[in-house]
């Protein structure tokens, strides 16, 4: 019998793999996989990497760093390096889709769907009953477009909404931790239109932010976990971070799968969950990047379309981050006094008034 083992093994291997066929267009799949990684940094920035940086950034800006040991998390650093490389290795093409659910915020539970493809992006915010609140986006041809379902109005302004990088110098504090803010704003948006043309959309910004988050000691590896049937590596923020965050990344592709952030004790309990999926650039999916103007909606100046949304944010309900450059008066093209009225109600704007 023993002499037949080799033959039996051959037959077993043959049988075990008999129905396997390599997928057609393997190189295309690989190109897509590389694109996914790169795009992950673009919209996921809004998601994953940003969050990785978020706690460190906030800790630098708002509070003294709780983790002051300066000890880099070696395992986290290794994983973050791979995530960063994976995201940087992708190419534009695939459409990144992110679904962000926010609960416990001043406006109840909201869901936002975001798509990005290269510099083009779109974000739709839904209220808790599932009605769209506003729909905004940017394309190189039309610039920034906002549709407000609250007032049945829409506005368009060329020159706004393009992804950009925040200079590291905007932050005070330890220089090594400062660039983390560059990827900060997307998931921590207040539900305001005009804020999601994230600085984080630039891969280099996010890669830097991730590395900074690790060097600032804000991330640690918390083992492996299955998310929706997929095995993932779990990264969590260290205890005491201003924002508690958990990031799950695929151990094979090192692309982010899900991000959950929670505000720390003492702050209003807000939780955001972001799930990531990737869409092929079909005509149908590309259409998702375009902000449709519903029939009967009235065109108004941008500020007029934004104003109702600003008023929904209660005073002091969220931590005070840095002002988003798009909310600078010069960026909005509106006079400073007009913003001063809103600033009293909106912590985010307080810093620029």
């Amino acid at each position, binding site marked *: 019998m023993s002499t037949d*083992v080799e033959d039996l093994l051959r037959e077993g291997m043959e049988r*075990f793999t008999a129905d*396997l066929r390599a997928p057609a267009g*393997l*190189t295309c799949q690989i190109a897509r996989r590389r694109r996914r990684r790169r795009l992950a940094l673009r919209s996921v920035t809004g998601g994953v990497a940003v969050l990785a940086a978020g706690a460190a950034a906030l800790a630098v800006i708002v509070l003294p760093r709780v983790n002051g040991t300066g000890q880099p998390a070696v395992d986290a650093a290794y994983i973050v390096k791979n995530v960063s490389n994976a995201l940087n290795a992708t190419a534009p093409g695939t459409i990144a889709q992110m679904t962000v659910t926010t609960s416990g915020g001043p406006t109840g539970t909201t869901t936002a769907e975001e798509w990005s493809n290269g510099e083009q992006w779109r974000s739709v915010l839904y209220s808790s009953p599932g009605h769209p609140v506003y729909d905004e986006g940017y394309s190189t041809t039309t610039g920034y477009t906002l549709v407000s379902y609250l007032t049945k109005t829409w506005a368009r302004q060329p020159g706004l909404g393009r992804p950009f990088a925040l200079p590291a110098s905007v932050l005070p504090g330890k220089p090594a931790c400062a660039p983390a803010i560059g990827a900060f704003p997307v998931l921590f948006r207040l539900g305001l239109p005009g804020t999601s043309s994230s600085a984080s959309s630039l891969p280099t910004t996010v890669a830097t932010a991730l590395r900074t988050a690790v060097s600032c000691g804000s991330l640690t590896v918390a083992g492996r976990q299955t998310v929706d049937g997929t095995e993932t590596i779990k990264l969590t923020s260290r205890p005491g971070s201003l924002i508690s965050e958990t990031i799950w990344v695929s151990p*094979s592709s090192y692309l982010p799968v899900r991000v959950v952030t929670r505000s720390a004790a003492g702050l209003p309990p807000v939780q955001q969950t972001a799930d990531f999926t990737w869409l092929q650039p079909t005509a149908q999916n590309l259409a998702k990047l375009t902000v449709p103007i519903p029939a009967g909606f009235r065109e108004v100046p941008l500020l007029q379309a934004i104003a109702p949304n600003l008023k929904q944010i209660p005073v002091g309900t969220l931590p005070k981050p840095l002002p988003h450059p798009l909310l600078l008066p010069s960026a909005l093209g509106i006079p400073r006094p007009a913003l001063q009225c809103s600033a009293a109600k909106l912590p985010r704007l307080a810093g620029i008034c």
Partner: protein
Amino acid sequence: MAAERSAADLECFLAERADHLLRTAVLLAGSREAGEDLLQTAVERLLRRWRRFDGDPEGYLRRTLCNLATDRHRRAGRWRQKERLLRAELRQAQDPAGDVDLRDALVRLLLRLPARQRAALVLRYWEQLTDAEAAAVLGCAEGTVKSAVSRGLTRMRELADEWNDTAAVSGREEERS
């Protein structure tokens, strides 16, 4: 200096050999999903250097698959844990009433061997390489391949013998009843 290769050349090569390489990858990785991932990673590496690639692409991919599988296995550090699982599974496999035949049991045992042993057996008995060729792919001495194959086969023979003994006992009991 090698002439530049086009993407179409790679497509042609993959159209011809990707099925076989996928099967190798699955045997090395242990599951279809892991095998596909392994192959994609290997092809991605080849793709990066394809235009100036000078050599046998199949050999390169085979070597990369083996290295990736070994790295992953080593990183996971799970083979000892898998051995414990294997023992439990072998006990199940000895049940002749089960519809799993010896060939399947051997492959399952193969998939639970340490990565280098598994790679050596796959290269020898699936890829049908000689010991020397397998050693070149694995980047080790010929003797290392021989001993890895020998150890793997020894365990498989043990399994086959136990299997046959159990089947014989079971057959006698059936005859009596």
